[in-house]
């Protein structure tokens, strides 16, 4: 074998396109006779549209059509998706209520501003706090009921277990609703040509996109070709085709012209999907030595109308994280008049870890125990809910290595004991856990007579690095340099590899690449013995060996491109499929990490700055450390952002008052410190043959709690609401 390429740092193979403006994202596409759709959005949060006056818009220059709930094309309902313009109900502020299509963007926009809507307005349900009384248990998710109670023998209730504990802490935590706010706004370019749609739109999976759109448009999946090799960020928001895609497609068919719909940034905030805010209560009981005796975690999140919620803060953390004999988790939801809550980076873990890991810090303080020691003491060696062992868990190594690398021993044990000028400094830490998901995938690998290889499937690269993972794993499997492997993805005509999401990309696609490479080599060797023009003709395939691009048999050896040329073949290719088996009946495949944060809190202004952050991650074999590091760094900064910046604000009437990038705060460069990442190297082949686990979401889990815990360490002020803003710090600084 050549030098292994998996595990070494590789530059992104799509880098040259992305730094030169040549990577074409959805809205970068254009077609002859293309027209522009501009959305009109609701100005109320709840009610019914009584009437709309579109007469001025229809007479406006360049306008081709104005679609409203009163005249629109049919879009069939798809479970879990709102079909736009199909009824007059308004469920949230900023919901798309009309689409104006004109020859130019400027014309469509000007006409859209003239549309008048008359509403029958109703009181909106906006606030989780005010609606808490209407909360109901969620439907079961992946077989887990909304309330899980595990009690030791003879313990009557979780309340009793807490009451009997040597020490208890109990507190309420809230997290703000958030927007995915990918830099690429929600947008779509769709053509309809002779019964066939072509769709360009950022998506986490062209396969699911085609299936969903086929249902919505009442056509077969063969009638839709999705081409989306570049996605300008998604984070869960583009997992399914939102209103703009459905509208662009339906309008393209109705008008027989290509349609481009680019939601404005404000519409991207209001007219699509969000992460729900949460209200949580965590109660912990422990023995004097820190051993957990009871854990109760209750969480409420916003839901779509059928009570389903994506932000399962309690279920997705407390059922899996710590060894505890008495455990109760209660997950409720309440429908709100907000944009539809959906999955967003680490849905459940991101918000749930804030509550659980803050509570663990509160327990450590109450016990006067080091927070790292408390976590090591309660490390779960089997999965608390399922009772299964972990496929590979080196979390204690993460804690120990992280503490050492971060200089944890220099942490002050008394608040306000470290003052640097006018800044209190402090350190905090938290645990990161993210479950391992894996889907079936089929990949094609080809060997070509020009000496290159091809690897393709319909997976997506959201910025995750998949463009580079494909050739790296293929090159590794074929014993070729990465530069000789050409990747293709993001096209629904390629072999199916499923959507990316739940950090499943590499672990889904990687093993299928290995299988396809194996099959391609087998096909090459089979040809070599079967083709009369082959120098290996007539040999037993078992006598041939493929290694690093060369085929060897008794007495001779040649490069595969020379062999293909000798046989008069342009190439040989094969599909390979890999899928999870029954291993999930034996193991749990979580990824783990420990996060350490240092903050500075201004003693006069209450300003919080994160000055250092370190994540030590146990995620199996890292395929490309360069892009993997970027993902963890990005995830950790997302956690810092959740801690200090991000939150959608709704006023009493349900208006999203900060629906733009100046007022919905995400970090800018000057907000972000040096972020250090270290990966442990423990390949996990129980999970998949590649030995990798997921990393896309791991980095955000726990970070916000680590920041909050550091603020407490610095100042003695415990902040239990995200984002942590300085007025709350000031109130405690007196």
């Amino acid at each position: 074998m050549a030098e292994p390429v998996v595990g070494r740092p590789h530059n992104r193979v799509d880098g040259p396109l992305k730094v030169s403006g040549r990577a074409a994202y959805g809205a970068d596409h254009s077609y002859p006779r293309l027209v522009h759709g501009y959305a009109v959005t609701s100005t109320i949060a709840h009610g019914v549209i009584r009437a709309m006056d579109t007469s001025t818009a229809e007479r406006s220059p360049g306008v081709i059509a104005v679609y409203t709930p009163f005249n629109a094309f049919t879009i069939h309902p798809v479970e879990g998706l709102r079909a736009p313009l199909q009824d007059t109900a308004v469920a949230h502020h900023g919901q798309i209520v009309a689409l104006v299509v004109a020859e130019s963007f400027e014309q469509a926009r000007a006409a859209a501003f003239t549309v008048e809507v008359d509403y029958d307005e109703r009181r909106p349900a906006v606030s989780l706090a005010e609606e808490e009384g209407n909360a109901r248990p969620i439907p079961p998710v992946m077989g887990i009921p909304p309330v899980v109670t595990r009690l030791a023998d003879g313990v009557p209730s979780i309340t009793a277990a807490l009451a009997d504990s040597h020490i208890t802490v109990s507190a309420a935590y809230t997290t703000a609703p958030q927007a995915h706010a990918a830099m690429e706004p929600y947008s779509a370019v769709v053509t309809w040509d002779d019964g066939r749609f072509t769709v360009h739109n950022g998506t986490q999976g062209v396969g699911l996109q085609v299936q969903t759109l086929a249902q919505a448009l009442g056509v077969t999946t063969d009638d839709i070709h999705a081409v989306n090799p570049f996605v300008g960020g998604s984070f869960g928001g583009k997992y399914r085709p939102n209103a703009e895609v459905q509208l662009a497609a339906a309008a393209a068919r109705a008008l027989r012209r290509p349609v481009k719909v680019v939601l404005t940034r404000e519409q991207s905030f209001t007219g699509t999907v969000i992460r729900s805010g949460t209200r949580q209560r965590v109660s912990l009981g422990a023995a004097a030595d820190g051993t957990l005796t009871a854990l109760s975690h209750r969480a409420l999140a916003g839901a779509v109308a059928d009570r389903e919620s994506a932000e399962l803060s309690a279920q997705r953390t407390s059922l899996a994280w710590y060894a505890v004999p008495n455990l109760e988790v209660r997950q409720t939801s309440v429908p709100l008049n907000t944009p539809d809550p959906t999955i967003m980076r680490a849905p459940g873990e991101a918000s749930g870890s804030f509550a659980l890991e803050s509570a663990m810090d509160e327990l450590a303080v109450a016990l006067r125990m080091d927070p790292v020691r408390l976590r090591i003491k309660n490390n779960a060696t089997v999965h608390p809910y399922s009772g299964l062992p972990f496929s590979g868990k080196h979390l204690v190594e993460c804690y120990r290595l992280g503490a050492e690398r971060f200089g944890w021993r220099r942490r002050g044990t008394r608040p306000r004991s470290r003052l640097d000028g006018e800044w209190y400094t402090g350190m905090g830490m938290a645990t990161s856990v993210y479950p391992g998901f894996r889907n079936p995938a089929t990949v094609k690998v080809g060997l070509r007579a020009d000496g290159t290889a091809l690897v393709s499937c319909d997976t997506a690269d959201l910025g995750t690095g998949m463009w580079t993972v494909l050739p790296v794993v293929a090159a590794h499997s074929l014993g070729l340099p990465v530069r000789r492997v050409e990747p293709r993805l993001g096209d629904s005509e390629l072999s199916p590899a499923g959507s990316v999401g739940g950090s499943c990309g590499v672990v889904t696609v990687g093993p299928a690449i290995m299988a396809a490479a194996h099959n391609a080599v087998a096909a090459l060797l089979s040809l070599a013995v079967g083709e009369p023009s082959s120098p290996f003709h007539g040999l037993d395939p078992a006598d041939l060996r493929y290694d690093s691009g060369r085929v060897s048999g008794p007495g001779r050896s040649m490069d595969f491109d020379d062999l293909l040329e000798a046989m008069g073949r342009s190439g040989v290719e094969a599909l390979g499929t890999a899928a999870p088996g029954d291993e999930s009946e034996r193991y749990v495949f979580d990824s783990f990490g420990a996060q350490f944060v240092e903050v500075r809190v201004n003693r006069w202004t209450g300003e919080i700055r994160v000055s250092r952050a370190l994540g030590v991650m146990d995620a199996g074999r890292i395929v490309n450390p360069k892009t993997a590091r970027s993902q963890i760094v990005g995830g950790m900064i997302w956690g810092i952002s959740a801690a200090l910046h991000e939150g959608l604000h709704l006023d009493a009437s349900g208006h999203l008052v900060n629906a733009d990038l100046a007022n919905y705060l995400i970090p800018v460069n000057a907000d972000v410190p040096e972020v250090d990442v270290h990966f442990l190297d423990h390949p996990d082949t129980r999970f998949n043959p590649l030995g990798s686990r997921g990393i896309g979401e791991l980095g955000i889990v726990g970070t916000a709690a680590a920041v909050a815990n550091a603020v407490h360490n610095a100042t003695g002020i415990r902040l239990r609401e995200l984002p942590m803003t300085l007025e709350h710090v000031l109130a405690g600084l007196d």
Partner: protein
Amino acid sequence: MSPEPERPPRPARVSRRGFIGRTTAASLGAGALPRPDQATAAAAAAAAAGAPGQPLPGPPGTEVTLRVNGAEHRVGVDNRATLLDTLRERLRITGPKKGCDRGQCGACTVHIDGRTALSCLTLAVAAHEREVTTVEGLADGDVPHPVQRAFIKADAFQCGFCTPGQIMSAVALVEHGPVGSDDAIREFMSGNLCRCAAYPHIVRAVRQAGSTGRKR
């Protein structure tokens, strides 16, 4: 990073309403204007419903000369059209990205007469006869700009959507230099949002490009 011109542009040839009708289809894009006889289905429906019949008059247009990446384009534009939309939708130069359309994110950053400008806050008419450089115009033939190379090497992007704007800002810093401390880089680059949060790597890329010399 002011989008305002340092000097007023030479007066563009602003014409009255009839102008666009005289413009060639090639320069405007075929079918870019409604013809009075072009009754749309919607307009027809509105007329049938008794709405006032006549199509409303359109706004004036202007013929401008845009010099983009060294090439000259004469283009008839809607006066409301931004430089960003004109680059993207009319000239098919799609490196500059529309992230917010209101100057909040920096994804549309270009250079106008050598200075950074937000093309979403610049009307196309305000760029008349000025030198516009987009990310597509940075490379010297096949040789990428040092900042482009540094971005790849430092992995200073993930999804890549903000990258054209990041790079245009970084090039301005590197070429006008010195790039200064890491904190100075962070401050200068803070008008360009990156949701993937590649910020530490962007700082590294700018530092590296700054230290290898301003000129390619």
